[in-house]
């Protein structure tokens, strides 16, 4: 294999122990947590160039680069790599699979070492703060005091926001993209349908499907099909498919007839290869309950240690609309945080945050470049 321009490292690390267990925000403990993570680039001598990437609901640690045998590069390859906004020639990039996930990090379908069976629905209920606890454990394992930036889109952006509120001293800046600080009733409604589809599937087996040898494939793929519609936009689907038939003519029967139907079915099926139903339930539930500004004093730590923050939304995103990003920006501004907020013109809906949109890449690039300049100046 040719030398890797990203200098990729993939690793698993055991965080937390019997003496120092992970205590969940809503109760419960785990004495060992495995975290799968990838790093790109090189940590500089002063350890001032680290950018921590938080992934979205169905992301994983493989954020960038394309390896032999892979059909597609990592999920944020548009932003991360040599010469890209998160330039791996200058930044050291860390991206873990999040707690509760299913791509190498401990989650509800992992085997509970105490019982030898999967955790199933016995896995502790998750909260955004738990993701932050584990992220902080990883940063400390890597021996980094201050991150140059934390960055994430969608659920990833929510982790960044929670982290900035809980431990602003960990970061010199924060980037929150296409996120929300409080899901709307419509958002929760979509999640509810997805969860119902999974839990009503007989293969769900009360959450113990790993041990039972069943699998809620129908439910999980329907959940994905529906969610996928909300990640795109009316215009984007029309441009891609219009009303064109999947085969030469529309047959008029109840099967998959339109091209868009076939596309959705493909999305649902391929999702089964890479995602776990319990992870979907647990992680989507975290978003429903997320409301970090709800309690008094939520911004106290951040006010004392204001972290320059970039908040960014996309004009056609109706899942987490610009209004939701503006709310984050306004709340932070009121807390005395220097906030940059921009709405990027883009037609493809929520998934815009994954795409190569020049205005968006330039915004993130400019913001990070300035932060790196400041870090260099202060370490001189």
């Amino acid at each position, binding site marked *: 294999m040719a030398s890797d321009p990203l200098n990729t490292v993939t690793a698993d690390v055991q965080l937390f122990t019997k003496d120092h267990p992970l205590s969940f925000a809503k109760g419960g403990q785990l004495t060992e947590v495995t975290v799968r993570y990838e790093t790109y680039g090189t940590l500089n001598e002063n350890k001032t160039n680290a950018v921590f990437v938080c992934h979205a609901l169905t992301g994983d640690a493989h954020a960038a680069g394309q390896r032999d045998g892979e059909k597609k590069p990592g999920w944020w390859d548009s932003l991360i790599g040599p010469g890209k906004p998160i330039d791996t020639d200058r930044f050291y990039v860390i991206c873990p699979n999040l707690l509760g996930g299913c791509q190498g990090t401990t989650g509800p379908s992992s085997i509970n070492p105490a019982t030898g069976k999967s955790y199933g629905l016995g896995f502790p209920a998750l909260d955004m703060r738990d993701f932050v606890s584990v992220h902080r454990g990883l940063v400390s394992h890597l021996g980094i005091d201050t991150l140059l930036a934390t960055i994430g889109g969608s659920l990833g952006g929510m982790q960044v926001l929670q982290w900035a509120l809980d431990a602003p001293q960990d970061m010199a800046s924060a980037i929150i993209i296409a996120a929300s600080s409080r899901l709307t009733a419509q958002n929760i409604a979509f999640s509810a349908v997805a969860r119902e589809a999974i839990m009503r599937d007989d293969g769900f087996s009360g959450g113990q499907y790993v041990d039972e040898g069943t699998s809620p494939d129908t439910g999980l793929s329907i959940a994905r099909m529906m969610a996928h519609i909300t990640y795109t936009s009316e215009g984007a689907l029309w441009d891609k498919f219009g009303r064109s038939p999947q085969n030469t003519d529309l047959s008029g029967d109840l099967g998959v007839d339109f091209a868009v139907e076939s596309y959705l079915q493909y999305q649902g099926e391929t999702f089964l290869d890479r995602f776990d139903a319990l992870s979907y339930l647990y992680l989507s539930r975290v978003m429903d309950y997320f409301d970090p500004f709800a309690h008094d004093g939520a911004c106290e730590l951040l006010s004392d240690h204001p972290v*320059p923050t*970039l908040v960014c939304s996309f004009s056609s995103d109706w899942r987490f609309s610009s209004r939701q990003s*503006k709310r984050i*920006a*306004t709340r932070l*501004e*009121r807390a*005395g945080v*220097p*906030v*940059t*907020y*921009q*709405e990027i013109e883009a037609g493809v809906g929520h998934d815009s945050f994954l795409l190569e949109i020049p*205005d968006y890449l*330039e*915004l993130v690039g*400019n*913001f990070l*470049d*300035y932060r790196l300049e*400041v870090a260099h100046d202060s370490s001189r």
Partner: protein
Amino acid sequence: MTLRVDFSLISSWVSPSARVLDLGCGHGTLLHRLATDKSCRIQGVEMDPESLLSAVSKGVPVMKMDIDKELDAFTDNSYDVVILSRTLQAVHRPASVLTHMLRIAPTAIVSMPNFGYWRNRLRLLSGRAPISKDLPYAWHDSPNIHFGSCKDLESLFAELGFTIAECVPLSATGRVSHLPTVTRNFSAGATVYRLTHRTP
């Protein structure tokens, strides 16, 4: 790049470490200077994407916001100074924007091109809409939708209960004018005001 004269003037009116909000901050040049020279806690608002990108490169925080519709987002007295530089003539509701400014901070700094400047009057007499350094656009593609003179603006300040703490006329070339302040409605290309609430 040399700093605009009105920026130097405005900067001299801002105390060190002040919390400063600049509405229509453009490329963030003034805010950048206030942060660098005076350790101000700065925040900008700007609609133009190119300007915003350039401000971000300087480390100036800028929110994309519509000054006409979204100033509600800022809480009462959350800043020491709010600046509106050469933007008032382009907003839809100048009175509402000005009222918000002195709600958000005890001091507002406002500058506006003077429609009453003698060259503008002359051009109007010749039968054409004014075009000058301060009003550089043709009538049909101008972002400016309100054409007021110093006198007009000052009577609006009075109506809103604002006190003019300081007032500096600028010449048509943008320098601090050496002509007497009293002739500003005739001689100034633009005027910069420092405003406070009228003390009861």
